[in-house]
Every structure is written in structure tokens, then in C-alpha cells.
């Protein structure tokens, strides 16, 4: 059972982060948080980029914690590690727009 959880962990985390960021983007635009700012920081942008970085940290930690088993264990341990890395890469790739594109246009 643990094996199954590990196989699914990385990508599930990506899915959660992806949905959360998308939902927050929708909410931020609907509630006009992009008009709000704290000093130099735009509220909506800070929220989105913050979530993105948090998700990257979580996935990086996860991948790192799977590494020892991947080195020693069998095929599925390596797959679990690979899936966590894939989650990390996917999060980096799909979250990039939070930092680079214009808000709510």
C-alpha cells in the first residue's frame, strides 16, 4: 500500500498545486485583488508566485526523500522517484506563467 502511495505522491502534489494556483488566479481576478498592493508587491502576483514556490519546495523535498530508496530498491522505487521528479518538473513548467505573464487580462 505504501508503495502505491509513493507512486502517486509526486504527481498528486502537482495536481493539487496546479488546481490551487488556477483557482486562486480565478478568485484573485474575480475579487480584484490585482488592484491591491502592499508597497511594491502586487497582492495577486505575490499570492500566486508564493504558491508556486511553495509547491516547488514541497516537491523538491519529496523527490529528495525518495532518492535513497530509488538507489537501493527495485523498479517501482525508481518509478516513484521518477514520478516525484516529473511532478517537480511539471510544477516548475506549468507554474512559470505566475511570474512572467500579465494578470487578469
Amino acid at each position: 500500500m505504501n508503495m502505491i502511495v509513493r507512486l502517486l505522491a509526486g504527481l498528486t502534489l502537482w495536481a493539487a498545486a496546479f488546481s490551487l494556483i488556477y483557482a486562486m488566479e480565478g478568485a484573485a481576478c474575480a475579487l480584484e485583488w490585482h488592484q491591491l498592493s502592499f508597497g511594491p508587491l502586487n497582492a495577486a502576483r505575490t499570492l500566486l508566485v508564493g504558491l508556486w514556490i511553495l509547491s516547488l519546495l514541497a516537491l523538491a523535498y519529496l523527490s529528495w526523500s525518495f532518492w535513497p530508496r530509488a538507489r537501493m530498491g527495485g523498479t517501482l522505487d525508481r518509478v516513484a522517484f521518477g514520478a516525484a521528479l516529473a511532478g517537480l518538473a511539471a510544477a516548475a513548467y506549468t507554474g512559470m506563467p505566475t511570474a512572467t505573464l500579465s494578470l487578469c487580462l
Partner: protein
Amino acid sequence: MNALRRHRDLARIWDSPPGWRGALASVNHSQLGIRLILTAFIFFLIGGILAMLIRAQLATPGSAFAGPDVYNQLFTMHGSIMMFLFAIPMFEGFAIYMLPKMLGSRDFAFPRITAYGWWCYLFGGSLLIIAMLAGLAPDSGWFMYTPLSSKPYSPGINSDFWLLGITFVEISAIVTAVDIVVSILKVRAPGMSLDKMPLFAWYMLVTAGMMLIGFPPLILGSVLLELERAFGWPFFDAARGGDSLLWQHLFWLFGHPEVYIIFLPAAGVISTILPVMARTKILGYGWIVGAILALGFLSFGLWVHHMFTVGIPHMALAFFSAASTLVAIPTAVQIFAWIGTLWSGRPQLRMPMLYLIGFFVTFVMGGLTGVMVAVVPFDWQAHDSAFVTAHLHYVLVGGFVFPMFAAAYYWLAHFTGRQRQYRLGTLAFWLIFVGFNMTFFLMHLVGLLGQPRRIDTYPEGIGWTFYNLLSSVGSFVLAFGIALFVIDISLQFFHAPRSRRNPWRAGTLEWGMSLPPPSYNIGSIPHVESRDPLEDDPRLAHRLAAGKGYLSEPRRGWRETMAVDIVTGRADHILVVPGNTMLPIVTALVTGAFFVLMLLKFYWLTPLPLAGMAWLGWRWAAALGRKEDVGPLPIRGEETALTHAEVEDPPGWWGSAFLLAADATFFGALLFGYAYLWTIAPNWPPPRLMEASLLTLGLGLLGAGVASAARHRPAAQREGLGLAGTAAMLIALTLSAFFAPPPTEHAYNAALGVMFGYAGFHVFVALLAQLFVLRRRRAGYHSAARRAEPRIAQLWTDYAAGVTAIVLTASHVPALMA
């Protein structure tokens, strides 16, 4: 016991009785798998005929062959039939037939569910065909966008046929997915650890998992739209706080994963056939498993790319554009693993391989145009044009139909016990391949020239005529090829010499049995040591028939097969599956009665079939179980194992858990809808909020807590507390619903209505489950060893408690704060 005796005894236990009664009552996976495949193929032919009519209409400008009203029914039915009644049931049927054989078991975990799934599919599909023959077919397109499909703009019964018929079929898909997941995880040959499973099982495991997550949003959408159409609950009506985009989100949340749900089983077929054709082993097993997992998840992050033009901010589009390009990577990993496999072996150009080459060329093109439309500005141009029609057929026909035709030739001997003899197939392939490309390649071009999709006609003199005419000619070449394919296959059925065992010299277990296989598949169950058991031991089939494996001695008339530990594949217990029964067909008929009454708008009669279903559900569970402990039984040599009735987590528990997972996605989608409407929809806030009350909220939460915490008590106390807690939840929900404003007034009210209804339904199910356990304990069905039933009932109770707590909080708290 010699092989012949064993065969006779097993056949007596597993065979279906002859005659129509036997056919109606059969729960055998091989029979049902073949029935699903045949039914799906018939729907494919019907969908194909509709496609021919579409192309006939579009062949010339200003054609008067079909008017717009007929044309709209044609393409709606073509799309819906191909997606819901052909593709999904086809691979389900294939998986139902093949998986137990590949996994070295004798049947699926829930044979009665397998049968129920097929009947529901047959009845639901027939409803749609009846609608079509009556000229009342749905006509709002296969994605049924609101408000076009809502009552004011589609007043007829057409859309109701779609919503109810498809939901009926989806119920079958969900229960079948549970069946598949549990069977793959639990019902395998001992020794087959997860990393020794044939790749096809991995593909089906992920596919079925995706179905559990992907289909509930569509079912929710259909329920909401039917509520709006039938009773005026305004979920999608912007004037009353609804939002037509909510439908699009729910639909595509299902609709995009759906495409991968269709592709993955076909990819599983390729990963199985291709190495055999190349006389080698697949390259990168672990990589492929990783790629399947990645596809399974990433494909849920694409749905908004169908909504690039609805006016969502560019940043949000960018998330989905990124995910849509990303999903090409695990696909590329698989494609290159396959090509690498071809390189490392000595590929032979046999019939299945020919179709696989057709797959490669077609699917890669579909993938490339897919990457193009994933780029937002390009999609702003190509969206909803004939370019997209071309793209989707390259993916679906290339990625599903070609591999399935390869599968047909590869496994034909399995179904018929005969070998291929006639050579019509090659000609059929070339007609199909050329005809297909001619039909659809041109559609890319005319799409870029500006031809929208779903138009019943177009004017002359704008340069579209030539492409459309050639495309229609191509489609008739294609149709001719398919007709030849049908003839070729039918000939093999009737007139070909018998095949020997394992004609392709493959390594997977499904070839380790006589052809066509007996109803029980294998005389005894092997101990699996590697990914290619037949390669390790080419005489395995004989040894199994001679009883050298597990469960070689039939006993007590039981249908026995082995259940294993999920990850390690260690022998865990003996699964005794139920035999033939009329319950599946009767339940499917009663389910169908509910849908038909809804269709005919006899709403006041619907409680009847619902009560019938509750009663049948009770019977369904009551048919199992035993009043005495049997303890460990021999399985092979000195080894013994318990039967599933005496273990902690029998497949039934897993089945409930996965069904609840699908249910939870449904609930999650409902909460998403509620939150979405609240933040995004126009015409909010509602005129008034519900009358919230701390008392009601407290009562409900208390009830939920008590019902769930009761598990730690001894049986009698647990039952009492459980019932008390459940009753409290029921009262709290009824009170809340009573003090909520009328649902037709605003989407807020309607959403609350559905949430209360959903929670109430589950509390009711929990109540039934608890009463069932109470009765069964008194009747002597439970003991210290036989303890699974209360555990399963507790699962349902906990779920109901969780749902009630969330629903009450989400409804009362915002109203209390305001």
C-alpha cells in the same frame, strides 16, 4: 485427479447453463467481454454510417441532402456514439475479456457487477438509438453546451435523451472501472508482484483510476442540467445566477481526460503486441510505467484548453497551454520506447504490425497538430474549425481504432480458436489507411481556410468545395475498407483451420490456455516468477491443465480464484466469486425504469424504481456470506489460505472504497460548482440567503461525530449509536432543506438543494447499510473471523458523516456570517 476430470468438474462449476435463461443470468467475464466488444462494434458501425451521411451532406456546397435539423442530429449522435458507446465500452470489453487471462485468474473480482455494467450499457445505448430512429435524437453537439441545450433553446425531449441515456451508460462505466481496479490490484496469480505485471494491466489500472476521477464531473453536470431542464433549477442560466461556463468546466473536466482514457488502453495493446512482433522484450518497462502515471495525472490539467476562447485571462490560459504541451513528453517517451523496441528486435510485417505502423504515422501527426492547438494564439485561429475535427480524428482513429484493429488480428485466435487464413485483410488495411488520410488530411487545410466545424452547408465559390468533395470521396474509400475488414474477420470465425496454442510465441499468460479458452480459463493458477511466464516455461499451459498450480482441486461447487497482496503479489486468500444470477439484469432493468420514467416526465413515479433499487441492493449483498467459519483451506501442496469471507479487507471492502473515491470526486465537483458560482458567476449575490441556525448545524455535526466514532464500540452499542447518529444527521439535513429558499429562484438556492439532496441520499444509504448489518448479525452471519460486513458498512457511514458535516458547514456558515 487427471486433467480431463478436472476440466469436467471446473466446467460444471463455471459454465453458464445453455439456453436463454443461462444467457441472461451469465456473469462469466469471457462471455461478457465478448458481448461488450460486439455491442461496441455494432455502435461503431452505426456511428460510421452517420459519418458517411455527414460526409455525403458536406460533399457539395448548398447540398439539400439533409436539412440543418437532421444534420445537427447526425453529428451530435456520431460524436456521442463514437465516444460513449463505442470507444469506452470497446476497451472495457477487451479488458474484461483479457485481464483475468493475462493476470492468471479465473474471473473478475465482481462478476455480477461486470454483468450489470453490460446490461446498463446495452439499455442506455438502446435508448439513444431509439431516439434516433424516432427522429428525436439529441442535436446540441456531443458536448451539449448550455444554454443551447437548456430548455428555452432545446424545448424537445432530444436533450433529455442525451442526458439520461449517457448518464445511464456512465453508471456502467463507473462500476466497471471499480471492477477493473480491484481485479488488477487484488485478483492476480500469486507471485505476480506489481512490477511483474504485464504492461497492459498497468495501462488499464491507470485508465480505470482515471475513469473513477474523470466521469463523476460529467455525471454531476448531466444531473444538474437535467434538474434545470425538468424542474427549472437554474445552474446554467445567467439571469438567475447560473453560468453556462460551469457546464463547460464540468464537461471538459471529464472530456479531456476522456481522450487519454481512450488512448491508454490502446497504448497498452501496442506495448503488448509490438515486442512480440519484433521478437524481443519491451524497452524500458519502468519508464513506461512512469509515463503512464504521468499521462494519467497530466491529462487532468488540460481541460481548459477546450475553453481558450471563452474569455478567461491569459495567465490562466497559459497554465493550461503549458500543461498541454507538457503532456506530449510522456507520450514521446512511449513512442520512442516503442521505436527503440523495434530497433532492438527483428520486426516482422505481420497483419497486427501493419496496423501498428498505421498507428504510428497517424497518431504522430495527430500529436503534432495537438501541440499546435495547445499554443494559445494558434488555437484562437483553429478552434472550432475543421482543423480541430481533423486533429481529433487523427488522435482518436490513429490512437484507438488502428491499435484496436491490430488487437483484433493479434488476438483473433483467442476468440475463435482459429488461425488467420484469408488475405483480404491487407487490402482492407490499405483502403482504410489511404481513405482515412484522404478524408481528414484535407480537413486541416480547409479548416485553416476558415471552415468552421458543425456547419450543415457552405456557400459555393469560397474555395472549400474541392477539399470537401475529395474528403468525402476519401471517407467512402475508408468505409469500403472497414466493410472488407468485417468480411475478413467474419470469414475467420466460420472457416479457418484450428489454431495451435500460442501462435505468436508470446510470453504473457493469456496464451497459456487452450483456444478458445474454457469458462474457467485455467485448470490451476500458476506461480508467476517473471514478466513473461510462458517464455520461462513454454510447457506452462500443460502443467496448469495438469493441476500443477494453485486451486487445482474444485471443491464445494465454489468458483475459486486467488487474491494476492497488492504490491508483493504474495498469495493472500481464496476469493470465492458468486455464480450466475438474474440479479444484474433485473437491477439494470429497474435502473432503466428510473431513467425511462424521468424521460417520460412521470416524476411522481420515480420513487418506485428507487425503492426497487434499494431492495435489490439489499438482496445483492444478502446473497453472499456464510453462517459458519471454514478456516484455512489447502491451496497448493501444503500451503493453505483463508477464504475472503474471513479476512480483514476482502475485495468487497476495496470495491466500496474505490466506489466512494468516485463518489467523492462527484462531491468535490459539486463543491467546486458551488464555490465557482459564488465567486465567478454573474448576478450574484442571491436575493436572500438561507435561514441558518447554529442549532441545526450543531445537531448534524454531533450526529456525524457519533455515527463515525461508534466504530470503537462493541457490536450492539455500535449499532445503536450508529443509528442514533445517522438519525440526527437526517433530521438536521431535513430541517436545513426546509428552511432554504425555493430552488428555482436562484442558482444559490438550487446548489443548496442539490447539496442537501446528495448528503441526504448518502445518509439514507448509510442507514440501510447499518440496518443490514444489524439483521445479519442477528441471523448469525458475523463472527470474530467473519468481520468484513460491519467494516464495509462503517465505511459508508463514515462517508455519509463526512459529507453531511461538510454540506452543513458550507451551507450554514456563510449564511451565519452574513
